[in-house]
C-alpha cells in the first residue's frame, strides 16, 4: 500500500494505481487516525511548504520515521535531506521498496531502537550510502543545520552536540570536510562581527592617522602638521619634502585612539556575537568543523547485531586498568620482588601484528567475533588478582602476581592453546607475538616504564 499526501487529494498516475493500493490523505492528522504503515509515502510536491510540513512530521513519527518518502515534483525549497527524492517509475519504485524490505529484515530490532540514536541508525541502515549533509540557513544562529538529526532528535537539544556524541561513539564517520567555522564561545552562534579596538584602552573609537617621518631631522608627526599650501613641509626643520623614500616615509604607527591618544599599528580585534551580544577575543572562538557524515562500520554492526563491539572496546570484558595504574602496580611488584625474594610475578605481553589489515580480509564483523571469543577465553585463563592493561589498540599487557618462571611457562602453554583456536577461527591469518618475563629475570636498574618499553620493543 502507498499513502499519498496531497492537499487536494489529486490522484497518482494509473501506472501506480494499477500496481498498488493507494490511500489518499490531505493532512498528516488524517493518517494519524489509522497509522497504517505503507510501503512508501508519496507527497504532492507542488507546494514546498506543504511537503516540508508533511516530511518533518513523518520523520518525527515513532513508527514510520524511516519509511520511504517520495515527492511528485522536486524543487529547491524542499528539505531534501529528509526525502528520498522524486517519485521514480513504478518498476524502480518497486526495486527500492524491495531493497528497504531486505535491509530491514537484516536489521536487528531491539528495544534500544526507540532512542533517537537507534532511529538514526535504522534510517541510515535502510539507505545504503546515505550521506548526512548540513543545510545552510542564514536565519539560523548556527548557520548550518542538520535537518535529519533535528528530526530524529525531535528538536530536543543541540544536534551538533548529538552529532559529536555519535562521532565519539564511532557510529558516524566523516566523509568530507566542507567548512571550518568559528562560533561564539558562549552560545555557539556563527553570527559574529569583528571590531578593531585600541589595544591600550579597548575603546572602539580609533582612526587611521597617517603620520610622516622627515629624513632630514627625523621628525615624526601627523601628516596634517606637514601640509602647507599644497606641499609637505617638515614642521620642525622646514625642509620641503618632495619624494617618498628619499625625503620622507610613513612610519608604521598608523592608528590613533581618539580617547586615549595611544598610537599603534595594529588594533586589537574583538569579536562580538550578534546573538548573545557577548564579546570575546578571536582565539577564544570555538572552531566547528562542518562535515558530511555517513554510517560507520561500527554503526552498521550495531544495525545488524543490535549491540556494540569494536576493536577499541573489544576487550572491555577483560576489565582493563589504565596504563598509568598498570605501570604503577608493575613498579610496586618489581620493588616487592626485589626486596622479598619469595615474592614473584610475571609480565606477559600480547601483540597483534595485523589486526587492521584483517578487517579488510575477513571482514569487520567476523574479526569482532573472533576477538570477542578470544577475550572470553583469555578471561577464563586469568585469575582474579591478575591485572590487564592495553597500551595500544593491538597491544595487551598482563601482570600475573605470584607467578614464577614455571608458572609463566604453564600460562604460556595455556594461552598458546587458546591462540590455536583463535588461528583456526581467523583462517590462520592472524599474526601475533608474545613477550614475557618473570621477576627473577629482572635487572635491578630497570623500572616499569623501561621494562615495558624494552618488551614492546622486542614485540614490535
Amino acid at each position, binding site marked *: 500500500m502507498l499513502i499519498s499526501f496531497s492537499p487536494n487529494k489529486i490522484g497518482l498516475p494509473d501506472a501506480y494505481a494499477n500496481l498498488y493500493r493507494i490511500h489518499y490523505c490531505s493532512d498528516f492528522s488524517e493518517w494519524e487516525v489509522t497509522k497504517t504503515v505503507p510501503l512508501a509515502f508519496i507527497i504532492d510536491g507542488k507546494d514546498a511548504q506543504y511537503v516540508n510540513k508533511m516530511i518533518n512530521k513523518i520523520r518525527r513519527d515513532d513508527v514510520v520515521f524511516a519509511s520511504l518518502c517520495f515527492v511528485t515534483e522536486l524543487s529547491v525549497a524542499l528539505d531534501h535531506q529528509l526525502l528520498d527524492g522524486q517519485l521514480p517509475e513504478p518498476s524502480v519504485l518497486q526495486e527500492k521498496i524491495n531493497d528497504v524490505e531486505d535491509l530491514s529484515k537484516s536489521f536487528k530490532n531491539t528495544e534500544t531502537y526507540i532512542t533517537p540514536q537507534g532511529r538514526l541508525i535504522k534510517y541510515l541502515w535502510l539507505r545504503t550510502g546515505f550521506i548526512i549533509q548540513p543545510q545552510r540557513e542564514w536565519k539560523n544562529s548556527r548557520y548550518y543545520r542538520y535537518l535529519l538529526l533535528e528530526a530524529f532528535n525531535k528538536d530536543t537539544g543541540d544536534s551538533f552536540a548529538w552529532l559529536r556524541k555519535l562521532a565519539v561513539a564511532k557510529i558516524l564517520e566523516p566523509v568530507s570536510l566542507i567548512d571550518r567555522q568559528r562560533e561564539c564561545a558562549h552560545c555557539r552562534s556563527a553570527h559574529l562581527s569583528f571590531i578593531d579596538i585600541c589595544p591600550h584602552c579597548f575603546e572602539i573609537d580609533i582612526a*587611521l592617522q597617517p603620520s610622516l617621518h622627515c629624513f632630514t631631522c627625523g621628525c615624526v608627526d601627523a601628516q596634517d602638521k606637514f*601640509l602647507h599650501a*599644497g*606641499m609637505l613641509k617638515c614642521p620642525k626643520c622646514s625642509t620641503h619634502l*618632495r*619624494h617618498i*623614500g628619499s625625503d620622507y616615509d610613513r612610519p608604521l604607527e*598608523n592608528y590613533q585612539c581618539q580617547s586615549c591618544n595611544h598610537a599603534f599599528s595594529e588594533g586589537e580585534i574583538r569579536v562580538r556575537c550578534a546573538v548573545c551580544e557577548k564579546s570575546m577575543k578571536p582565539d577564544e572562538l570555538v572552531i566547528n568543523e562542518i562535515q558530511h557524515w555517513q554510517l560507520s562500520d561500527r554503526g552498521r554492526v550495531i544495525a545488524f547485531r543490535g549491540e556494540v563491539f569494536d576493536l577499541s572496546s573489544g576487550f572491555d570484558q577483560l576489565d582493563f586498568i589504565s596504563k598509568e595504574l598498570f605501570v604503577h602496580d608493575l613498579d610496586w611488584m618489581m620493588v616487592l620482588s626485589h626486596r622479598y625474594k619469595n615474592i614473584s610475578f610475571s609480565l606477559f605481553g600480547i601483540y597483534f601484528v595485523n589486526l587492521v589489515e584483517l578487517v579488510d580480509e575477513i571482514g569487520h564483523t567476523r574479526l569482532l567475533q573472533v576477538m570477542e571469543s578470544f577475550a572470553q577465553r583469555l578471561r577464563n585463563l586469568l585469575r582474579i588478582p591478575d591485572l590487564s592493561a592495553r597500551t595500544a589498540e593491538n597491544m595487551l599487557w598482563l601482570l600475573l602476581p605470584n607467578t614464577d618462571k614455571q608458572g609463566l611457562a604453564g600460562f604460556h602453554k595455556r594461552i598458546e592453546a587458546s591462540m590455536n583456536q583463535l588461528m583456526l577461527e581467523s583462517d590462520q591469518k592472524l599474526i601475533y607475538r608474545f613477550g614475557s618475563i618473570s621477576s627473577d629475570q629482572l635487572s635491578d636498574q630497570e623500572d616499569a616504564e623501561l621494562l615495558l618499553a624494552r618488551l614492546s620493543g622486542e614485540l614490535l
Partner: protein
Amino acid sequence: MDPFLEAWYVFRLTIAQYSELQYVLMLIPFVLFLELPLYLVNWLGVLRYLYRKKNDIPWIALYSPRVTCTITCYSEGKAVQNTVLSLLEQIYPGHIEIIAAVDGVKKNLPTYQALKELLPLVKNYANRSLTILPKIQRGGRVSSLNAGLSRAQGEVFFALDGDTSFDNQMVSSAVSHFGNPNTVAVTGPMRVRNAKSTLVTRLQNLEYMLTMQVGKLGFTQLSAINNVPGAFGVFRKSFIQKIGGWNTGTAEDLDMTLRIKQYHVRYPELKFVFEPNAVSHTDVPESLFDFLKQRLRWDGDTWYIYSNKHKSGITASVMGWKNFIFLLWYGVLFQVIMPFSIVIYTFYMAVMIPTHIFLLSMVLVYVFYFLLVSLQYVLYLILLSDRKLEDCQAFWVLPVYPGFQFIGRVWSAVAILNQMFNKGHLDSAMAPLWVLKKGKQ
C-alpha cells in the same frame, strides 16, 4: 665705413701673420651659427620664464578633476612599486586613478606580483585607485598606453614609465595648467635617480639638467618644445582620444609631439607647457654599453620619425613657421646634420692639418665647450635648480663632460646611419618586432 674696413684689415693682417690660426677659425661657423644661437635662444626662454615667475600673480588652481595615470610596465620588477607609491603619495585633492598596464604578463610575473602586493595599501589613501591591466600578449608600449587610454576615466591622462617616480606635487602642478582649455600637453623636468651609481650616470645627470630641464623649459617658453618625453607626458584626455591615441611604431612620444604640432596652423591656440614643479625621477643606463644602446635607439628613432613617418608633415603650412623653423634648426640641423659635420670635420682636420695644430684646435674646442657647459651649469644652479645641494655634485664631472658630449655626437651619427641602412627602428625594446613591422616603414 672706415673704422670697419680698418678693423677688417688688421684682422686679415693678423691671420696672415699667424697662418695656423686660420685652421682654428674654421671651427667658428659651427659654433657661431649653429650652437651658440640655440643656447642663446634657450636661455632667453629661461629668462622669460624667470621674469614671469617673479612678476606674474601666482594663482592657485581650484581645478582638480579626476586624473588617470597610466604606468607602462614591463620588466621593472619591484622597482615599479616606487612609481605607484609616489603616485599614491601625491598631494592632490582630486581622484587619481592609477592604471598599471603590465605588458607580456606571463614573462613579467615579478612585476605583476609587485603590483598586486600594493593593492591592499591603496585603501589607506583617500581618492586613489589602482587598476592592474595584465596584458597576456606583449604588444609594446603603445598598446599599453592605448589600453590605459581606453580604460581611463580621468580628464587628464598621465603617460608614465614604470621606472620613473615623481615628486608629490607633480600631479597638482601639472593639472593646474589644464584649467586653461587650450593646454593639451604638459611635461616637467626629468631628474636622474641613480646619478650616484657610475660615472656614466653622473654624466647623464648633468646632461639631463642642461637638456631636460634648461632646454625644455627655455624652448617651451617660446612655444617650441622638441619632445614630450615618453616616460613623463601629461595630456588632455579628450584631445588625445580625438587624435586617435598613440600610433604604432617606436618613438611614439616624438610621433605624438609632432602630431600635436601639426594642428598648429588649424588651432594656433593649442599649448604645450613645461611645469618645473612637476618633477620626475628616472633611472638611466649605468654602463657605457647600455647608454650607447639607448642612444642608438633614441637618435635612430629621431631620424626614422623625421624622415619616414612625418616626411610630409614637417612643413610650415601645417605646423606653422615657428615650429617649422625650430624643428629644422633643432631637430634637423642640430640633431641630424651636426653629428655628421662634426665627425667629417674632425676627421678632415685630423688628416689635412698638421698634428700639433689639430691637437691645439681640439684643446681649444674642449676649452670652449667646457666654458660653455660650466656657464650653463652655474646659471642653472643659481637660477633654476630645485635641489641645489644635490645638483652641486655634478660639478666634479664638468671637466669630463665635453668629451662625453663629443662621444654622444659621434654616436648620433652612427645611430642615424644604423637607422638609414639597417632599419634600426625595428630593433627596439619598446615593442615586439611583429608589432613594429606593422607600422609605417
